[in-house]
């Protein structure tokens, strides 16, 4: 008798797609209407994009101009320099990635992506030697990953990147007896990347110094830094670029400075002011007790700053710094307005070429995808790094 009094156990919840759809898409009338409307919008957007991409778009413009999109007017006979740097960067990325993820297996999607890129390069053969060298670069990433897992401590990689940066700058300019490359010959994706990397590297010390200056107890130093930061932050980057184009040669007494260098000066000053504000946030987040404790154990003011306060401050603002770097990367497109041929500028030139009239859609679609891949990779990379650096788990 007792058995009948007990209610039967609830039916097991079998997760089916019908149940999922009912809960997440059609839970009530409003939701159902929203689903239908959004669904219609999605189908319309995707189908018109697909129709355009597969029937109307003239994709021929991309392979025909692939080299120009990547490196601009970089001399063809000097392209080995960019390939060399690309392969070294791929190898080091692999090493760094491997050294950071000891004992973890490589996720399957990386093999798939690597294989697709290598096959794509083999099949299309866009540009100079890319059919061989792109697969080499892909293999370099994987080789680096496995070596990095066993042999390389990640601390060494931080130093290696600094060496690679200066090495790359030298390699992109210096004459080895077979003719050098001038910065004004940089273009396309190469110029975009060099502008952003030089911008962030050069603005880092300046920005940190400005942040320390602004938070210092010395009123005059603090006031000068504050005025500098606020004036630059109140000015749009385009104006900074225009002013840099006009002022930099004059400030140096009428010296002949190439426009790419002037743009780099502009982007460095602009980025430093924003970086200073981010770092200042970090400096203020370090508890006063840390400074007091450091002074109590006998560290000098400079030691306290460099060994105790700055490391904690920078770690605290790392997400903001990555966000700023992504912004800087996207902002390099503004040099198009002062006539430089980075990704946006070079696309503008290609579409005014009589051979490629009416290909604006294909070009801007392609460069948007390039910008998106880089920015998105940086933001997801930052999320991983943040998890790795988080010691308060």
């Amino acid at each position, binding site marked *: 008798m007792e058995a009948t009094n007990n209610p039967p156990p609830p039916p097991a919840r079998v997760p089916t797609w019908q149940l999922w759809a009912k809960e997440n898409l059609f839970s009530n009338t409003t939701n159902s209407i929203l689903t239908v409307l959004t669904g219609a919008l999605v189908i319309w957007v995707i189908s018109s994009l697909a129709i355009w991409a597969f029937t109307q778009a003239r994709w021929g413009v991309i392979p025909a101009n692939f080299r120009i999109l990547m490196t601009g007017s970089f001399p063809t006979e000097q392209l080995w320099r960019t390939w060399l740097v690309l392969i070294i960067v791929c190898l080091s990325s692999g090493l760094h990635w491997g050294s950071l993820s000891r004992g973890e297996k490589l996720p399957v999607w990386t093999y798939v992506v690597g294989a697709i890129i290598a096959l794509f390069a083999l099949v299309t053969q866009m540009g100079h030697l890319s059919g061989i060298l792109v697969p080499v670069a892909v293999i370099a990433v994987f080789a680096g990953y496995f070596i990095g897992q066993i042999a390389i401590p990640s601390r060494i990689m931080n130093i290696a990147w600094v060496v690679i940066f200066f090495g790359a700058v030298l390699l992109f300019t210096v004459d080895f007896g077979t003719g050098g490359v001038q910065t004004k010959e940089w273009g396309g994706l190469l110029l975009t990347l060099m502008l952003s990397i030089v911008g962030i590297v050069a603005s880092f010390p300046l920005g940190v110094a400005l942040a320390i200056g602004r938070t210092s107890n*010395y009123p005059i130093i603090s006031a000068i830094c504050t005025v500098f930061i606020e004036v630059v932050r109140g000015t749009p980057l385009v104006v900074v670029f225009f002013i840099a184009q006009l002022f930099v040669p004059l400030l140096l007494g009428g010296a002949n400075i190439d426009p790419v260098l002037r743009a780099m000066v502009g982007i460095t000053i602009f980025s430093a002011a924003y970086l200073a504000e981010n770092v200042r946030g970090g400096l203020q987040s370090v508890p006063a007790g840390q400074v007091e404790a450091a002074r109590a154990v006998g560290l000098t003011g400079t030691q306290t700053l460099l060994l105790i306060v700055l490391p904690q401050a920078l770690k605290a603002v790392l997400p903001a710094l990555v966000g700023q770097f992504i912004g800087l990367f996207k902002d390099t497109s503004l040099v198009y307005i002062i006539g430089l041929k980075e990704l946006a500028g070079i696309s503008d030139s290609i579409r005014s070429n009589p051979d490629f009239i009416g290909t604006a859609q294909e070009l801007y679609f392609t460069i948007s995808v390039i910008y998106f891949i880089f920015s998105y990779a940086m933001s997801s990379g930052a999320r991983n790094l943040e998890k790795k650096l988080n010691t308060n788990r």
Partner: protein
Amino acid sequence: MSDFTVNAEQAPVPFYRDVKKLAVIAQVVFLLVVLAGIFILINNVNLGLKKQNLSFGFDFLPQTAGFQVAEGTAFGVPYDSGSDNYIKVILVGLYNTLRIAIVGMVLATLLGVLVGIARLSSNWLLNRVALVYVEILRNTPLLVQLVVWYFIVVLQLPPIKEVEPVLGMYLSNSGLAIPWMVQKPDGINFFPVTILAVAAGLAVFAFFVQQRNKSGKPVPAGQFGFLTWVAVLVLGFFALGQPLEYGVPIRGNFGVNGGLTVSPEFTALLVGLVVYTSSFIAEITRAGIQSVNKGQWEAARAVGLGYSETLQLIILPQALRVMIPPLGNQYLNLTKNSSLAVAIGYSDVLNVLNTSGNQSGQNLQTMVIAGGIYLVLSLTIATLVNAYNRATKFKTR
């Protein structure tokens, strides 16, 4: 204690060991270095300009500008390229910048808040679509987006001859034309009244917010402010002898006449800025809503409020407090980003100054003016946002 003072009197601290004196010396040295640097740079600029037979002065400003500006007025006063000077043409540019910035802020806020709410929707499809929207817009450069909006969307619209009006509005490759209250050619300039109305509305709003904080009683400050704004506009309209008339766009051979017409450049820049900024505002809204304690939702549901009532009356007002500072930052960015107008040829203040510089050969001065104008605009927006932030902050006693 007394031992120390006695010691100090016996052997005074030398100045190079006295922290206070050192601080003063260090700052004076720093100041001198900065001033010397500035002096050398200014000297270099003057020398460089002399080499090119130029000088750094602003004498060119009262000269006749002599170039056409596609649209806009000097705050209600029409601009004549044949006789008006550079100051007036800069005012036209400033008017165009403010026009796009203010309209852009309002529309970007509306769109951004909607997308932010969609990001948190329990409807899976809707929140995924909102996520894709935000990620695509935030991860591609604004400049590329603007070029796409201008060259690929707006300029590819059908020509005005083939467009059918929707609600009296024409959207074609020559821009947008909508029915609007427009200035009569012989009427008194109505523009100051619109500024006065906004100022009066804000003042009344601020006053009643203060009253509310003092008395602790509910006062509909927002509604009072809005009513004041409308009242000043209506009173001004009749007091100035009805200087506006209702205009409807009428299609002609080469374009539309009547109503409010804006250029394709304005349309593309506005859409581009609004869509781009809305993706950032969406993220701010999402973070703001998520910062409100879950208990607030549950309590609101418990007292019988529906979803939209809870959102409007309980959640958004609390979320707004977290959202205001970053929102203010986005308004600043939008204003500064409007300078990308140069890329698509909209006559904003930077574009006009750039043309003025090329026209008069005084590029340096016009760019310095541009920097100054944007600096003033940024500081004004920052001040307004801070004031609003203070007025609506949680009062804890």
